[in-house]
């Protein structure tokens, strides 16, 4: 991965950027911090993202999740407490989404979590965990906590457009305002969303990337031309729901949403 950091001291804007992180790029804009503080925060953010990528990215053969996927059918694999907690969390989301959020993509009941020693074992050789619908939301939450710790009043954070966090507001507005564009029709704006201390997650198919969201159980690949946007103060909720609601029926959507407190939810036909 490559990264850049630029700081404009006159305007007190800093921009940090990483490419090829969690399968996408990462951008953060920090306001009202001097260069030294801002670059310190950026370095910490960068380290954190690299650390999480090494833990959660199954496309990295040396990541902790890859090690787990490779061995957990053969013997119980001990994982770090943070990853263990994430897997427990994913199980809770699985329940809250009627099984539609499933990091095993097949059968989560075949994944055994042992709290006594933080070990994980798979009961079937076909199980392989994929945190793609969770990791970016989790990373946003971790970064948000860091920004709070450093008293950053205003920031805009984006994981490749699909997972966004708006903290405080734009210097010339009372929020951060983003528009949702139709991936199939150039320059068509589907809607606008104001973000103030909240996050937005968007899932959907695009012309060059489709069939990547799978309905657990049936294994059916989703190729619908639609976008699902979820706004929530909890970036993990937003992340989990945007993917889950993409494959849920209308009835399922209603029932699932009863288990969450989110700010808004929209589906756009593209």
């Amino acid at each position, binding site marked *: 991965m490559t990264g850049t950091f630029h700081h404009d001291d006159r305007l007190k804007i800093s921009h940090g950027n990483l490419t090829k992180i969690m399968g996408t790029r990462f951008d953060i804009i920090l306001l009202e911090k001097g260069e030294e503080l801002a670059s310190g925060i950026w370095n910490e953010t960068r380290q954190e993202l690299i650390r999480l990528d090494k833990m959660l990215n199954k496309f990295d053969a040396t990541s902790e999740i890859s090690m787990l996927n490779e061995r957990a059918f053969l013997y119980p694999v001990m994982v770090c407490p943070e990853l263990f907690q994430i897997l427990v969390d994913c199980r809770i989301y699985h329940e809250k989404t009627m099984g539609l959020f499933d990091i095993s993509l097949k059968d989560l009941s075949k994944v055994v979590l042992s709290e006594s020693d933080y070990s994980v074992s798979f009961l079937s050789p076909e199980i392989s965990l994929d945190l793609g619908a969770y990791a970016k939301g989790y990373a946003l939450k971790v970064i948000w906590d860091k920004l709070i710790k450093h008293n950053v009043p205003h920031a805009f954070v*984006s994981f490749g457009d699909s997972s966004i966090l708006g903290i405080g507001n734009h210097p010339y507005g009372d929020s951060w305002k983003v528009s949702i*564009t139709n991936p199939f029709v150039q320059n068509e704006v589907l809607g606008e969303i104001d973000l103030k201390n909240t996050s937005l997650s968007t899932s959907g198919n695009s012309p060059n990337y489709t069939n990547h969201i799978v309905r657990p159980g049936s294994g059916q690949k989703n190729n619908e031309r639609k976008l699902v946007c979820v706004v929530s103060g909890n970036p993990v909720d937003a992340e989990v729901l945007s993917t889950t609601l993409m494959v849920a029926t209308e009835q399922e959507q209603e029932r699932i949403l009863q288990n969450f407190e989110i700010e808004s939810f929209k589906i756009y036909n593209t």
Partner: protein
Amino acid sequence: MTSKKQNKQSVDLSLRQFIKDLGGIAGGTALLASTPWLQSFTVDKLSELKKEKARLAVIGTGSRGQYHIHNMLDIEHLEIVALCDNYIPNLKDASVLCPKAKTYTDYKKLLESSEIDGVVIATPLNWHAPMVLDALDAGKHVFCEKAMALTMDECKAIYEAYQQTDRVLYFGLQQLFDEKYIKGIQMIHSGLLGDIVGMRCHWFRNHDWRRPVPSPELERKINWRLYWESSGGLMTELGSHQLEICNWAMGQRVPVSVSGMGDIVYWKDGREVYDSVNLVYRYANGVKINYESLISNKFNGMENQILGNRGTAELAQGLYYLEDDDASPAIQQLIAEIRDKVFSAIPAAGPSWRSETKGKYKPYAIVKNTAGVHSGASMIGADADGSDLILSSFAQACITGEKAKNIVEEAYVATILCLLGNQAMAEQKTIYFPEEYRIPYMKF
């Protein structure tokens, strides 16, 4: 005034304005320092000339000479007072273009005229050295076509004569006055592409490189490009521009060695010079120029690629590409809007952007106007490639007497490299840059 003439003058003024503006921007002085021949190429210096005109003669009025005449007729601060060619049909054609100019068949007689300030030489390569040296000797300012000369010793003689003279000497490296090269090289020097890690230059045509010959005894005179006695072949005729560009991009560094192969692959018509050349020039830091020219297939056209660890420039097309072209346009827009105190919705939300879906490199234009793109197909010259501006600068220098920095040195380096390339191909071995042809200007 014709619209074409107006257009040429506006290109001239626009580059002059660009050079002037460079002085005012951050880092502009440093950029100007890397293009010192442009220091006097400003609007102000042009207006200082008032109504003065350089009195110029054109020696060699074949196709390239006539191309220069067309450009010269559009330049206000010069007049063509004399023409010279020992091939009468060409002299007559040129005379039609400038009927008032006095005609000569012997350049030495022309050089005796006190009414000539400077000469523009566009003759076969073997004539460059004697004509340049004689013209300087006669007190004339000189503009000579590239390459500098047929042999390394002749180049050295010209370089040494230039050190002794107060006359102005230019060589036809028009890319030094071509906006897209100037801006492109400046962007490279500013670090746009990161470190230069390699260069690839090629020039492909599908043409026999011949001119029709009215009677057989004129073959070597008219098709001088095809014989070693009068030509360095593809290297001096095409490669010299491209090798100069590589050295310019490398910050005046010069390769230490060259290896290569040259053959007559297709045009086996009695010519002596290769119709296919492949060479590798190697710099001391390991960076290499891959040079290739072939004139029996035009698929690849002409290009000068400068490869950096962060991006690639295709200078002939005026384009550049970035290796990690992952900057989010929405984020860029957001930053720009904050700078401009604008608050609006930025198009930042959508399905996840994925670096692995990126198929092609996206081209960015070095200059907005791409009118001067040279496909490499023409045997004479392209429009707006700097050929007219370098003559405008030369005419200005003839009036002011101000020497243009670096042009002679760049021409010297590029020509020696071409000739070393020819030597490497002829001897089929690696040739190292000889001590005796090194000049203080060169950095290895």
